[in-house]
């Protein structure tokens, strides 16, 4: 470590101005993140002009604080309203909203906050200690390896298909089809657009997530409201529980009981974050899927804090590692990293490997801000989460329309495109029909998210190997290893399922009255 540069970094960071901008960034981030449709990258883009006018440490504090706050903030509306603030928090809806309906919303939000901050801090420390190693490891993942990583993700997430395989497959098929709409990733020619130009860019993830998770639930609850008015009032009462003195918080023991899930989230998030093009949503779903697969006894997906801990630690653990390719090679690995890179350029610092020698004090300042940002996130997030969630304290009859309105605003806000609103409404109706038919929505969202990435990488691998499938699929030892791991997960899942069925039969035999 260059001691002089580190001292300069301390002087840059520990000023009232820098700390104030960091606090403002986290505050804005949590608020923006909790508004559906406004993601971390939108918030950073909005704040970029302001950052031009600040000193380098203040600018980094504002933008990184906003980034950290926004990734956590998305979970607040996911838990309170079943409307993920950003796609990163979609996996949090499963357990979070169920806990809110059980009157344990406060516990759910605190679990999200503590697991987010824990994972974020741990991954930041990993980044600071071994950023170059992670970056070099990420370079080993070419199209072949990334395609197998996607296959591993799908096999790990297979457990989210629910009890009925056929219904899970149908849901996955719908997601696969929706994921193919838009420009072909290789030839750029429109496909499956039914001649509609507005479908050329494909279906955007934000309206899909809001439609499938939030609007479908609200249509369902709206119908219940019409049938018997007590149901939404019950949810409203549960939201009110967030503030009541009797509402259930999170004990230290419960927090510690999530250490395995947070460990999974830290591992998955740190690595996925360092790989360009995957992002926090993939990390959250992968972490959630692994935890659900490994710990069936924790009843993840049925209103478990362990599910929230897995998903939220998975997405927040990507925050620091997203900057690894930027710091190690000058490559922005995500839209948010690109915006932070743009802020550095505007401050006269070109992100490149030379940064470590030319501007070491800025790198150390960035590391310090990454760590400090987590403490600000903890304090501000805790206060802000409950203030924001007060928006849920509306009369029962108003709750459902308010969330529907939020869903419409969120779908529009993401890109400012009115067609996204129609898309969200259509998908909301589709989600509603699926819920009524008992078809799980998770496989749809997962295949929609992962299948295009898998296709892109498969086609790139085929292009690089000139159409040779053997080379494209098994051209490297790492690729073969990942393929073997995917096969292992499939066999393990099969064995566990068979084991559970046998155990279930045995259990039923025991319970049967003896003659």
């Amino acid at each position, binding site marked *: 470590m260059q001691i002089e540069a580190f001292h300069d970094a301390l002087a840059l960071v520990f000023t009232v101005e820098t700390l104030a901008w960091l606090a403002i960034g986290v505050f804005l981030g949590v608020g923006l993140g909790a508004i559906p449709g406004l993601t971390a*990258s*939108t918030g*950073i*883009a*909005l704040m*970029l*002009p302001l950052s*031009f006018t600040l000193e380098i440490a203040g600018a980094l504090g504002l933008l990184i604080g906003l980034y950290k706050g926004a990734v956590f903030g998305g979970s607040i509306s996911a838990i309170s309203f079943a409307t993920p603030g950003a796609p990163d928090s979609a996996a949090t809806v499963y357990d979070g909203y169920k806990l809110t309906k059980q009157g344990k919303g406060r516990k759910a939000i605190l679990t999200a906050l503590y697991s987010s901050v824990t994972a974020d801090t741990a991954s930041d420390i990993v980044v600071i200690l071994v950023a170059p190693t992670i970056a070099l490891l*990420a*370079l*080993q*993942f*070419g*199209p072949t390896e990334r395609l197998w990583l996607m296959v591993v993700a799908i096999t790990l997430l297979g457990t989210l298909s629910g009890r009925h395989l056929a219904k899970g497959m149908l849901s996955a098929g719908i997601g696969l089809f929706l994921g193919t709409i838009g*420009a072909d*990733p*290789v*030839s*750029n*020619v*429109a496909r499956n657009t039914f001649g509609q*130009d*507005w*479908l*050329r*860019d494909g279906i955007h993830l934000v309206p899909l997530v809001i439609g499938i998770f939030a609007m479908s639930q609200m249509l369902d609850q709206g119908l219940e409201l019409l049938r018997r008015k007590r149901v939404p009032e019950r949810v409203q009462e549960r939201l009110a529980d967030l503030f009541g003195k009797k509402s259930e918080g999170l004990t230290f023991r419960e927090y510690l009981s999530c250490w395995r899930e947070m460990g999974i989230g830290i591992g998955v998030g740190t690595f996925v974050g360092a*790989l*360009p*093009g995957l992002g926090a949503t993939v990390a959250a779903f992968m972490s959630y899927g692994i935890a659900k697969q490994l710990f069936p006894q924790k009843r993840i997906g049925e209103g478990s804090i362990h599910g929230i801990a897995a998903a939220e630690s998975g997405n927040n653990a990507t925050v620091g590692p997203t900057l690894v*390719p930027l710091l190690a*090679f*000058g*490559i*922005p*690995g*995500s*839209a948010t*990293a*690109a*915006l932070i890179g*743009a802020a550095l*350029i*505007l401050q*006269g610092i*070109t*992100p*490149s*490997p*030379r940064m470590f020698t030319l501007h070491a004090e800025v790198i150390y300042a960035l590391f310090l801000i990454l760590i400090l940002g987590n403490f600000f996130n903890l304090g501000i997030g805790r206060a802000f989460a409950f203030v924001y969630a007060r928006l849920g304290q509306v009369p029962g009859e108003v709750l459902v329309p308010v969330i529907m309105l939020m869903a419409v605003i969120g779908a529009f806000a*993401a*890109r*400012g*495109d009115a*067609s996204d609103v129609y898309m969200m409404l259509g998908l909301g109706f589709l989600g509603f029909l699926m819920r009524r038919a008992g078809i799980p929505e998770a496989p749809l969202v997962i295949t929609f998210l992962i299948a295009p990435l898998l296709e*892109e990488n498969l086609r*790139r691998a085929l*292009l*690089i190997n*000139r159409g040779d499938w053997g080379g494209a699929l098994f051209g490297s030892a790492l690729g073969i290893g990942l393929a073997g791991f995917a096969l292992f997960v499939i066999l393990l899942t099969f064995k566990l399922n068979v084991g559970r069925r046998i155990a279930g039969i045995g259990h039923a035999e025991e319970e049967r009255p003896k003659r």
Partner: protein
Amino acid sequence: MKTLKVTALVAAALSWAVPAAADDYPSGTINWVIPFGAGGGSDRLSRLFAAEAERHFGGARLNVENHPGAGAVTGWLHVLNQPADGYTVFNATPTPIITLLSEEDAPVDPSQIEILGYLAAFASVLVVREDEFPDWDSFVAALQERPITIGGTNALLLGAANVIDQAGADAIYVPYASTGESVTDFLGGHIDVAAVTESTALTIVPENGIALINTSSIALPEDVDDALGNPPMARDFGFTGLAFPRWVGMHPDTPEERMAAFAAMFEAAATDPEVTAAFAAGGEPIIFLNREEAAADYEAMVNTMRNAIGLLQ
């Protein structure tokens, strides 16, 4: 009689309205349409331009409007659906042109715009590992001996395909959704060449590669060219280069005097030292081409792209 009265009133109204509008132009708000969402590079630069250069537009306000969608064609259709009165400006990149040229039944032709200038232009620079391809000649020789993989976004691959085709060679073009992914694959040795913008090339050269060729028709800024080791340009080998401009245009039916007035104001703004300094600080220096130069380059670019797109498919 009644019809005559109405006609006379309309004629009077028009005779009042048209000269007054021509005299006052511009007044009120000029809508600066970009075909991309908020937060991207085009959005950032458009807002920077609106903030820094508004004073050159005769008191009119520059209002940046985002009309994303349909491969950046939605914004184009929006401009064509607005009144051709000089109050709607279209600021785009080659992205909508690539979309339109890729479609069999495109909703609009790339010629349906009146080009009024270029604000900036980026180049497709081919970055290679020096030990594999020390210079252009060795690269072409290798292309003729074995398949070489070149990765980049679609626009940047077009620049590469354009010069490689003129060199009488062929390559395997691997499209990527983002530059980050293609550069990672280049650094990891999964592809042989990365087609990148000059600003991305600056992050790779000299530690991890050399700039083999600037495939653009427009020279790089001197300091960038020096930092990249002064790579040869397409024209140094007798090839027609392909630049990727941030072009500015208007509805083709806009009255000529308004287009001329706008082009003059745009030139004054884009050559203002304060504005150019702000863009340079933003990492994308202004590379201004006036109306005549830009229109000629745009026509050549569309024709070149029409051929190059076939090479990628």
